[in-house]
């Protein structure tokens, strides 16, 4: 099987672009969710559209699954290979095709890293706004496939809000253009549909992104709070006051202490929670906004409010936030990062409940997250060497996600579903909606060859899983396994 597939691929691709040995395939066996590993049958590294088309054709003819992969930084296992399929790496698609300064757009290949786009257009005074923390490594194709967010998406939106056009190839081998360079694209919004579809609908070949003028000035406020709940309320008050900060992040005491030992960002270690609130724009606008945010922080009971006085200090304040995950890694043998989102108004309530659950499970939980978006990232600290602790952690994690659904939120914020949350999808959605997802999938990929088993669970799986939707605050089946 492997030989056959490799042979048919080598008819169109150079031999060195088709990997078949265990050794060669090892680097592709997982993405950023390293708990799951699988060796693909073959890995193909095409260099142009013609070669991608050849890979698609070979896979279609032999009914082999195709999993597309960019930089492999995804956190939900979206690029986990299929053991009977082709792993299609887009690493060679790494060119910035063109930049249109007047229209403020860049046309890039999917393997270009997120940060490279911003670096490339920096001399023009422009940048690409979505900034996942992995932006130095993650690729734009993967950003589109996962609809990535980042610290600044509160003001600037997710990937879907920052792209104009996608060129993609379908499993039929047709090259299609979704979206347009103009205001409106007639027909159904297939651009939005393919964004965040986790490689299930088509393979992305080119992306036209929007670029923004670099703000004249950015300043960050660091505010301390006596308890997590009042910090949560401060977040709601900022938004309620009609302010849209460029970033609005929260860290609790467990996180700030871990960070301070690690990078010395100058955080208030007595505070139960701190907020980092960034304002950017024209000078007058920032001055005005900083004054208003400061006022809201004080009115919400902040015990200390500091404003960055220089670019160096701004970056220092942020350094702690950006280093938070590795810092937490230093204080615990293992940790588990959860990604869920909730309506902002529920922040205080949910954080309190997370703390109660922490006490109940006797597991520490650090909170470092995009508070302004209501995008939670609780980090559960555990030690996999203690028998039963991993299971307890998983139980705790699933309770947090169910809590998200219960308050009207969702099981994802910015990390996607992948293989990680496939079971939670059964809790999030009812049969009618899941059927609709499958109908859409079948419309693009009738034989289910593109990234099968990811993103959307089969109804059969949901039936086995025994979940149903949380309605009216009733939590069904607390026995949700692995998340």
């Amino acid at each position: 099987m492997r030989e056959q597939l490799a042979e048919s691929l080598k008819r169109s691709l150079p031999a060195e672009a088709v990997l078949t040995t265990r050794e060669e395939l090892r680097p592709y066996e997982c993405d950023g969710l390293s708990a799951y590993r699988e060796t693909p049958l073959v890995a193909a590294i095409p260099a142009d559209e013609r070669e991608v088309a050849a890979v698609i054709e070979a896979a279609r003819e032999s009914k082999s699954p195709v999993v597309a992969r960019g930089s492999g930084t995804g956190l939900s296992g979206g690029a986990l290979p299929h053991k009977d399929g082709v792993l299609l790496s887009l690493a060679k698609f790494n060119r910035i095709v063109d930049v249109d300064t007047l229209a403020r757009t860049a046309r890039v290949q999917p393997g270009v890293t997120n940060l490279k786009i911003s670096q490339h257009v920096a001399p023009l005074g422009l940048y690409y706004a979505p900034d996942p923390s992995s932006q130095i490594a993650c690729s734009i194709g993967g950003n589109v496939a996962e609809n990535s967010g980042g610290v600044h998406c509160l003001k600037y939106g997710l990937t879907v809000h920052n792209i104009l056009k996608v060129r993609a190839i379908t499993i039929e081998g047709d090259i299609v253009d979704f979206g347009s360079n103009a205001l409106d694209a007639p027909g159904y919004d297939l651009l939005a549909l393919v964004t965040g579809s986790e490689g299930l609908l088509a393979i992305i070949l080119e992306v036209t992104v929007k670029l923004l003028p670099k703000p004249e000035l950015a300043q960050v406020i660091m505010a301390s709070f006596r308890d997590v709940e009042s910090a949560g309320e401060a977040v709601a008050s900022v938004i309620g006051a009609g302010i849209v900060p460029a970033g609005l992040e929260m860290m609790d005491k467990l996180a700030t202490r871990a960070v301070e030992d690690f990078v010395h960002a100058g955080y208030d270690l007595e505070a139960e929670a701190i907020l980092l609130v960034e304002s950017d724009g024209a000078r007058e606008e920032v001055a005005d906004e900083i004054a208003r945010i400061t006022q809201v922080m004080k009115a919400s009971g902040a015990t200390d409010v500091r404003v960055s006085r220089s670019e160096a200090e701004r970056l220092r304040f942020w350094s702690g936030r950006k280093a938070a995950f590795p810092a937490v890694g230093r204080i615990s043998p293992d940790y588990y990062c959860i990604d869920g989102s909730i309506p902002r108004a529920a922040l205080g309530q949910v954080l309190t409940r997370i703390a109660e659950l922490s006490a109940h499970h006797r597991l520490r939980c650090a909170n470092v997250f995009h508070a302004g978006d209501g995008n939670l990232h609780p980090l559960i600290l555990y030690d996999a060497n203690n028998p039963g602790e991993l299971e307890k952690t998983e139980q705790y994690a699933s309770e947090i996600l169910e809590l998200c659904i219960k308050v009207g939120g969702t099981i994802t914020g910015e990390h996607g579903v992948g293989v990680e949350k496939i079971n939670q999808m059964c809790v999030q959605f009812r049969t009618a909606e899941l059927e609709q997802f499958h109908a859409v999938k079948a419309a693009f990929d009738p034989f289910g060859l593109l990234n099968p088993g990811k993103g959307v669970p089969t109804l059969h799986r949901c039936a086995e899983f025994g979940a149903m939707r949380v309605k009216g605050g009733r939590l069904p089946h607390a026995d949700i396994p692995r998340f």
Partner: protein
Amino acid sequence: MQTSPASEALARLRRVQPPLAIIADEEGLRPFETDAYIVHRETPMLVAVPETEDQARAVVQVCRELGVPIVSRGAGTGISGGAIPRHDGVLLVLTKMRRVLEVDPLARTATVEPGVRNLYVSECAEPHGLFYAPDPSSQSICSIGGNVAENAGGVHCLKYGLTTHNLLAVRAIDADGDVLEIGSQALDAPGFDLLALITGSEGNLGVITQVVVRLVPLPERIETMLAAYPTVRQAAEAVGEIIGAGIVPAGLEMMDRVVIDACERSMDMDFPKDAGALLLAEVDGGAEEALDAMERVRAILERCGASEVRVASDAVERAKLWKSRKGAFAALAQILPDYYTIDGSIPRRCLPEVLDHVFALAKEYGLTVGNVFHAGDGNIHPCIFYDANKPGDLERSEEMGARILERCIEVGGTITGEHGVGIEKLRQMCVQFRAPEIAAFHDVKHAFDPTDILNPGKAVPTLKRCAEWGGMHVHGELPHPEIPRF
């Protein structure tokens, strides 16, 4: 006795509990025979007017079982014919589903039924210091369900986005009669983005029964400017300069000489007499921010050769400046007996070139054309004037319209800006897209509506048939000239 589909549908719909308003008599059906694309008319088989989602669902279920097409309709202000009924189908009118279910000032959302008028959402939000941003010119009467179905825009969508950027969730009935909850109140909704997919799908994928919209804070300060330019080209270049400077105005609209004259005649605007084009620019935000942006925009407007720049000194003056823009289409109706409005969008930098082309075409065809449009978005609305009583005039205007749209495609733009495809632009869809893309649209349609009962024949042409070419034809006076348009 053999029953006709009409009598069978009628009998079944009459059994729906609680009883549903049904219109079946010729006289009663007449008002529903068209939307704002009045050149095309068709009397529906029946009109059903549900007051609840359950009733709407019952109608869909009956239609599905009988294989009867359903066209859903809100206020009927669409201008591409999306809500034009079918003689063999049920027209599902959602205007009685018009409750505002919740306004949540903390989450800044409003949950409304589809028949709620666009402007009413903002009126309900105003006591909380909030508003619903997308503002099609017909906002005083158009309904939010129709806004979602057409992905409506408006003068302020340059800054605030189209309908699709201002929605969080919808409830919709699919062709199987299942209610789908699409989107979420949180940052992200897992699964495919069906919310964006159903938005702008022109009634082809589901019947919308509830909408959760995003509300935004009312800006603290608004500044409105009017700048006069000797030529359209100069005004178009000023648009490019403003955007190029990194400023995102709340609105940036252009009117050419033909439109200025028409407004002057019907509204007595006291515009600069010698201007070839006017730009209306609005900036908003915090007090400092709006003032700062106003100064920067004014400097650019002047630098680009404006012969005059006026800044509205208060709300009354601002309203007056906007009155000309919002009333422009009604004013135009007085120039010639008939006109045809084109809706296309282009990359902004192509504005001067495309407008030159529009004028050259007008010369070639011997027709008058007026331009009043969302310049900041590159959304053009050339109005071609003709006299339907002159043989060949109508055909020439249609041909010219088609060539303008083709030009939009050539420069990298599209055949729609904010009016949708409906039945008006089915043929242009074949020019805009290649066969694989049209096929992908049909596959998506089939995924939601396998038996093709939801608004069949609209928005996406069949590959075999590129439908007849039509337009928004104004005969004499516009119907309801008091309603602002576009």
